[in-house]
């Protein structure tokens, strides 16, 4: 391998690292994604140049493979509805795992058909067979698991026009079975080292791994599916790293293990946010099969640091105070927050005052005036509502019914009540002690929206935490 090839791979690995780092922060995330894509381009171009420009049929085939794959991927990415995003990520992930496993299989198949290619060196052979076996285990498991996860996210599958709901099934005896299957694959890999050309072992590994992916995902309910997809994503990275060991390629090892490790961390972060542990998600079958509305809804809680990151760079923030602000007496912290972001990010801060916010008209005006909030920043509901679509963050402090979209439906106790259109903001942050219903006893859909971040806790404690997080960022 010539020097420039290693340098190309080094550059691409560095781009992946910076890209992943930047993807974790709202303001730099799009740039991070572009860095990752650039890293991939560098790696692919380096590889193609290294292969040497022969003028055989292989160029037509490799080129067409690249073009076909790119077009399919692009078409799927552009066409998908925003609601279908997680399914698509799961499917792409399955393809990635399958690609790694196929590369491993292609290498081993060479040995099967041309036994002369089998390395004489015992160490080299052992490394190849172990890595190929692990790549197959993780890769095929990722493929079948991801496809099942995709259908679970959809909630069902259409067979001959008939809608079949994806089952959630996981008796307790399935858990020891999963472990036995993993041991089975390990034994087959061990055996295959002595007989690398034995296809029985090969098919055995592939078959067990594929079934393992299914039984791993089958017991897990729809609500936990994002955690599972994240875990499978981590696994597909590991599969790529193992494939790197087979073909002795550094960029595969680096990028694969980066994704494997950071994907695992992200999985833990997601578990923690849902107040679950990973073993709970994986081995305890519950969570229902994504039945809509009938189950008690849950919402991931955020912490002040996350909210501070969302607010970083926001151009317009609208604060929606409610009874909770009055109860916790946190108007001074709210004022401090507004001053902080106005000074630090040059943010335009306004307050949306609902006529019945709090327990009496003008309750909020009084409290905020006490904290020396300039009067011009307090805007009445009818005036502020058209501004929410241009608003980066709506910060709701202890308000519930006055922001409840259920009021628009014309049914229930809130029917017809004018509300603050906080749900039109790009991100909604709600400080509230729990998900419990408000004064009117109506569940609030706003809490469960994807763009909503819940800060569970006392208004004063949360605002203080938020202010500290902003000062530190």
């Amino acid at each position, binding site marked *: 391998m010539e020097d420039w090839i290693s340098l190309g791979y080094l550059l691409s690995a560095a781009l992946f690292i910076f890209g992943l780092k930047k993807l974790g922060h709202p303001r730099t995330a*799009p740039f991070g994604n572009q860095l990752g894509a650039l890293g*991939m381009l560098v790696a692919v171009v380096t590889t193609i140049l290294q292969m040497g420009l022969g003028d055989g049929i292989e160029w037509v085939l490799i080129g067409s493979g690249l073009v076909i794959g790119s077009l399919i991927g692009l078409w799927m990415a552009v066409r998908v509805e925003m609601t279908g995003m997680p399914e698509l990520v799961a499917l792409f992930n399955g393809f*990635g795992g399958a690609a790694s496993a196929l590369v491993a299989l292609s290498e081993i198949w060479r040995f099967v058909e041309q036994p002369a290619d089998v390395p004489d060196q015992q160490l080299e052979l052992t490394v190849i067979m172990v890595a190929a076996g692990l790549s197959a285990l993780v890769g095929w498991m990722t493929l079948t698991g991801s496809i099942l996860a995709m259908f679970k996210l959809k909630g069902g599958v259409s067979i001959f026009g008939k809608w079949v709901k994806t089952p959630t099934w996981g008796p307790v005896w399935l858990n020891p079975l999963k472990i036995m299957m993993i041991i089975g694959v390990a034994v087959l890999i061990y055996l295959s080292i002595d007989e690398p050309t034995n296809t029985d072992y090969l098919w055995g590994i592939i078959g067990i791994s594929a079934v393992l992916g299914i039984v791993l995902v089958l017991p897990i309910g729809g609500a936990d599916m994002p955690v599972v*997809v994240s875990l499978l994503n981590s696994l597909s990275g590991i599969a790529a790293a193992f494939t790197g060991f087979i073909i002795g390629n550094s960029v595969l090892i680096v990028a694969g293990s980066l994704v494997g490790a*950071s994907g695992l961390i992200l999985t833990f972060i997601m578990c923690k946010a849902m107040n679950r542990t990973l073993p709970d998600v994986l081995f305890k079958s519950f969570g229902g099969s994504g039945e809509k509305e009938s189950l008690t809804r849950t919402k991931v809680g955020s912490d002040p640091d996350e909210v501070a990151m969302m607010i970083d760079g926001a151009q317009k923030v609208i604060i929606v105070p409610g009874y909770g602000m009055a109860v916790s007496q946190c108007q001074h912290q709210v004022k401090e927050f507004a001053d902080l972001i106005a000074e630090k990010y040059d943010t335009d801060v306004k307050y949306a005052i609902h006529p019945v916010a709090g327990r009496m008209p003008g309750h909020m005006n009084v409290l905020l005036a006490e904290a020396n909030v300039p009067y011009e920043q307090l805007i009445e509901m009818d005036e502020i509502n058209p501004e929410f679509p241009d608003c980066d963050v709506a910060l709701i402090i202890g308000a519930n019914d006055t922001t409840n979209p259920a009021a628009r439906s014309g049914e229930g106790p809130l029917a017809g009540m004018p509300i603050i259109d906080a749900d039109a903001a790009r991100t909604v942050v709600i400080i509230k002690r729990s998900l419990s219903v408000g004064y009117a006893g109506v569940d609030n859909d706003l809490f469960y929206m994807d763009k909503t971040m819940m800060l569970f806790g006392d208004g004063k404690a949360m605002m203080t935490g938020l202010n500290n997080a902003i000062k530190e960022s």
Partner: protein
Amino acid sequence: MNAELLTPELFLIGNITLFMLAIFLGFELITKVPATLHTPLMSGANAISGISIIGALLGANVAYDGGATAVSGILAFVAVVLAMINVVGGFAVTNRMLNMIAGKKRGGA
């Protein structure tokens, strides 16, 4: 990193070192991520795991150079297509998601 110049032992140890260091780096890279970014981050990382495209390309090249059989050639070709779907689709869909989340917010500066 030439497999022919290094002994297999050294080559393997070098690769295991890379593997270990990259794992540790990966653990440190992601610390706190706001919930809104969970899906895009997962999707972006997933696109990077499509790096197996490199393995697929190299495998396809060996196969078509006559160094291997038709079957491994076909396997490598399918791997190229699947990996490319993962890579291009993954980065494109992440970009779409991020544009939606970021809205008209100030850019990267």
